[in-house]
């Protein structure tokens, strides 16, 4: 009798256990699938990020190479490789036509301390603009297809850009 009782108990327990294991297994699988899907997307994103970093490095190297190899010889009409060049001429051809200027920065200069209480802007509203008519500049921008949003090969790469200034004056 006692043995029968034990067997009955065990059978009941094992039946119960089997049911619980099934539910647990299903839930475990679901959890596993969700976690693995998340991990997979993260690994995929990391891989893409690494590839983008490699491409950025390669692009930067190629950009710097073109820039330093050709230097100032690169003109607007003779861009080397995938580098687009735009010239900005600062020639002094009139008071308002200066290319670049240095304008007093009121955010970082303590105007009251620097100029005293009588500080005012000039009639054009510009605060102390120093014109730089003899300073020219050239803007170099990489137009490699992987960094060009209009290209079909665009891979969301940060396009290297550089602006180089130069001084011109004819005596």
């Amino acid at each position: 009798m006692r043995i029968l009782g034990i067997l009955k108990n065990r059978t009941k327990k094992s039946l119960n256990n089997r049911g619980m294991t099934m539910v647990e297994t299903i839930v475990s699988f679901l959890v596993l699938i969700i976690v693995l899907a998340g991990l997979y997307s993260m690994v995929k994103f990391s891989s893409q990020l690494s590839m983008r970093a490699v491409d950025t490095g390669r692009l930067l190297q190629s950009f710097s190479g073109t820039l330093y190899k050709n230097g100032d010889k690169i003109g607007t009409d003779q861009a080397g490789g995938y580098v687009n060049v735009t010239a900005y001429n600062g020639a002094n051809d009139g008071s308002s036509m200066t290319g670049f200027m240095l304008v007093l920065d009121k955010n970082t200069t303590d105007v009251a301390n620097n100029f005293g209480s009588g500080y005012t802007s000039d009639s054009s509203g510009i605060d102390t603009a120093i014109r730089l008519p003899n300073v020219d500049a050239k803007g170099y921008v990489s137009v490699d297809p992987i960094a060009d949003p209009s290209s079909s090969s665009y891979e969301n790469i940060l396009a290297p850009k550089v602006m180089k200034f130069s001084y011109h004056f004819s005596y």
Partner: protein
Amino acid sequence: MSLLIDRIKKSKNSLKRYANKGATMMVAVVIMGILIVFTFSLMLVAYSFYASQNKNVASLRCSETAITLSQALESELTFDNKAEHYPEKESYLYKYIRYNICQYEDGKTGYWPYYDPNGGDAHDEAHAFRYFDLRYNSAKFKEGSDTYPETVDGLPGSTKVCIYWMPKETTANAPLVLPKTKAEREGVRLFVEVICESGSQTYSVKTEYVLSTGTYSGAIYEGRLHYIKDLASSIKPSIQPVNTITPVGIDMEALSPDESAERWEWTMVSRDSE
């Protein structure tokens, strides 16, 4: 007794069962943990690599602009060493410095104080440092050609120029003194720092110049005096609008012959970048 033995057996069985379940769960959790840690590490490494490359791009952008602008400003200030010494050939930056620093007039305030780290509040950074933003004239770049873009390609997010000056040091650690004579102005130091920022990258180039004073004479002196007296009205707006450029109100037309005869030459003595 036998009932007791049964209960003990049952509890032993159940203990065993529970213990096994826990162990399996722990193994699963550990494996999951390892996978998650591995994935996050991978992502961290990839992100660091990517951020580092972007940093290189921003760094190149800032350094090239700062270095070349600093060299261009050097030419703006030191061209006088090579050119004929007529005011119309002096750059606006040269004029700004020439008619602003070393200025004084009793009873007037607002002149550009020199920088002296030990000189108290009146000569601290807030009083002595002037910051300028580099701006471009989009109207000029667009004029006459449709190929000019509305924005300037390659210019970093922010390009600032900080200018300050210091009298020459007479005695070590002694407070600096405002130079009032030509002899005292000899050796005045000028600092021009170009600061470029792009993204999280900052690059600055600080250039130090030292002043040597001389005398204009002969035809050059006559030419300067003629220019200052006859053409002052045409150059005044560019270098002294109201009281902002020459805060103490020095009028170029009223410059004494001695002042117009004093020749200033800047020489670059050092250039540091960081």
